[in-house]
């Protein structure tokens, strides 16, 4: 992780160090280590039950790690009210929205959880809605939204407090190609603003399009951590053509079902 150049690049925005979590006898996450730099999108890939969501939950402070650290800009994340949590934005896999409230009321509430009030909150809401293309639906109840609009609002809710790190847990599940494309555009914008993005997905083409680095996790362990090109090279047969990401993924994690 150490690089030549300015001193600030020595410290990644998010560094996950030897994280471990067991549920009874099941070890869900085992010594997982990786980093995300500012302006970088890291794809966290893995089969069902590999430990992706548990890893994201530990980074977001939703569950306590048995061992290991989560470092935010070099600071160890510690406890529910750690100010470093303000630097993290979570976009959960579920549509974590209040359907009976308007889009604005939802964002007003989620913003207040980060102590945003008044004009500052209004500006943050306007910016987030503008980014995801929902400014004209701000006053409508969420229950009237399409699946894609809800997904975009779900993303906006994670951006309100202008976090440095965005944790995106399968943010495009169940949306149409148009909404998915719009979300991708949003993420490109965020990368351009220097945000560090950790993106979990099952869709290989999403990772191929978006990810600067890819961390493959299986049975709770990191089995690969490289760029797309690096991953493809790792699994390429000598003298043969470079495989695509899906082939590389299946080579790394095997073809057995994980239901």
């Amino acid at each position: 992780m150490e690089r030549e150049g300015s001193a600030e690049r020595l410290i990644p925005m998010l560094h996950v160090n030897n994280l471990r979590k067991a549920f009874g006898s099941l070890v869900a996450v085992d010594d997982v280590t990786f980093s995300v730099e500012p302006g970088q999108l890291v794809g966290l890939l893995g089969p069902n039950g590999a430990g992706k969501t548990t890893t994201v939950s530990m980074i977001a402070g939703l569950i306590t790690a048995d061992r290991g650290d989560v470092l935010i800009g070099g600071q160890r994340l510690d406890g529910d009210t750690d100010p470093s949590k303000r630097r993290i934005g979570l976009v959960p896999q579920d549509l974590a929205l209040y359907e009976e409230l308007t889009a604005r009321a939802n964002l007003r509430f989620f913003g207040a959880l980060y102590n945003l009030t008044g004009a500052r909150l209004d500006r943050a809401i306007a910016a987030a809605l503008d980014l995801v293309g929902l400014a004209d639906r701000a006053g409508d109840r969420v229950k009237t939204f399409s699946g894609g609009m809800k997904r975009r609002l779900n993303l906006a809710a994670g951006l309100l407090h202008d976090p440095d790190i965005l944790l995106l847990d399968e943010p495009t599940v169940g949306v149409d190609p148009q909404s998915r494309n719009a979300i991708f555009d949003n993420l490109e914008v965020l990368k351009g603003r220097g945000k560090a993005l950790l993106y979990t997905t099952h869709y290989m083409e999403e990772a191929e399009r978006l990810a600067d680095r890819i961390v493959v996790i299986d049975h709770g362990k990191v089995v690969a951590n490289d760029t797309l090109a690096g991953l493809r090279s790792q699994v390429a047969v000598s003298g043969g053509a470079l495989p695509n990401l899906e082939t590389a993924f299946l080579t790394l994690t095997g073809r057995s079902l994980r239901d």
Partner: protein
Amino acid sequence: MAMIPLLAMVRKDLQLFFSDTRAVIVTFAVPIAIASFFGSIFSGPRSGAPARISVAVVDKDASAISKAIVSGAQGDKNLRVGTPAEDEARAAVRAGRTSIAVVIPKGFGDAAGKAFFGNGEKPALDLLYDPSRTVEVAMVRGILTEHVMQAVSKEMFGGEQGRAVVAQTLPQIEASKMPEDQKRALVDMLKSVQGFYGQATRDGQATGPRGITMPYAVNERAMTSGSNVAYNGYAHSFAGMGIQFLLFAAANLGIEILLERQRGLWKRLRSAPVSRFTLLAGKAASMTIVGLMTLAVSFGFAMAVFGVRIQGSLIGFISVSFACALMAATFGLLIAALGKTPAATRGVTTLAVLMMVMLGGAWVPTFIFPAWLQQATVIVPARWAVDGLDAMTWRGLGLRGALMPTVVLLGFAVAFGALAAARFRWEEA
């Protein structure tokens, strides 16, 4: 504690509450409707006259005594007496139109007169009753005893039948083998009784023989907050129903938390830099506000429409109401902490709330419970809530009367809150 997130949680919960029309109706309108119904039952008619028991009397005897019994019953303020034919009376009881039918058999008066002096077989009155109204049977039996005794004694000591019986009895006594002194005493007594009632009639000091009457009168005074303040049954029913729906609303809050967890919303809350205490306090605060509004709307309606008044301490009433609402709110948190899924929790919670309010006297006053149950229900928070609100409304007790219910309810709130915090699932995998 971070006030901005706390206030945001309260505001959001209130927005959600008021956006759900069904929840608002269930919380505000339904308790008013049910409390009005129960209040109308337990308050009796608003004129102040007691509700009369419907009784059919079939007089197959048509003697002076039986007619006097019918007349006495018809004049009784507790009875509404009809005199249908026997078949009609039976049909009315069977159909539930009349609680009780009293059949006075032929020869009742004659036999009762003879039995009065102990030398005849006692005749029987037939009491046909609706088995669903056994409480009224006991009341009618007592009332009839008074009227039968009065009618029989009146006739025996002063009426034609009585004179005939005495005239018939005196020779029998003279001819009996009774010891002479006893025989003399009995004959003298019968003659003096006849003489007394004959004297009273001749002197015009009385309209006739009075018969045996109750040897005492009863002054009934309802012990309410003041001598000019009537008991208002609506006060109790609104307290009971207010508490019941307060607990239902709190249970819904608990289930809402489970739903929030199911929808992933709790992940978003937990990912924010907000303490666990703030999260629980925010929920408890919003529920306490909803609870206070429930009680305020219920009692506001009861005051405006049914004349319920806070005859005790206003501060005491507010204290008890606040303690009730806080207890209910923490009860909701406990449900969220112990519940697994919303669907499974809903069924168990409904049962728990119904048991709590039933044992707490929210439906019917606890004094009708068996003694052991009255003692046992002090562990039910709803009991303290209802007793506390009763104390501040129709009982008219002062601030001291609110102290114990308030302290106990706050104690329950602390216990529920602590248990909820200890058992809450904070890990969001």
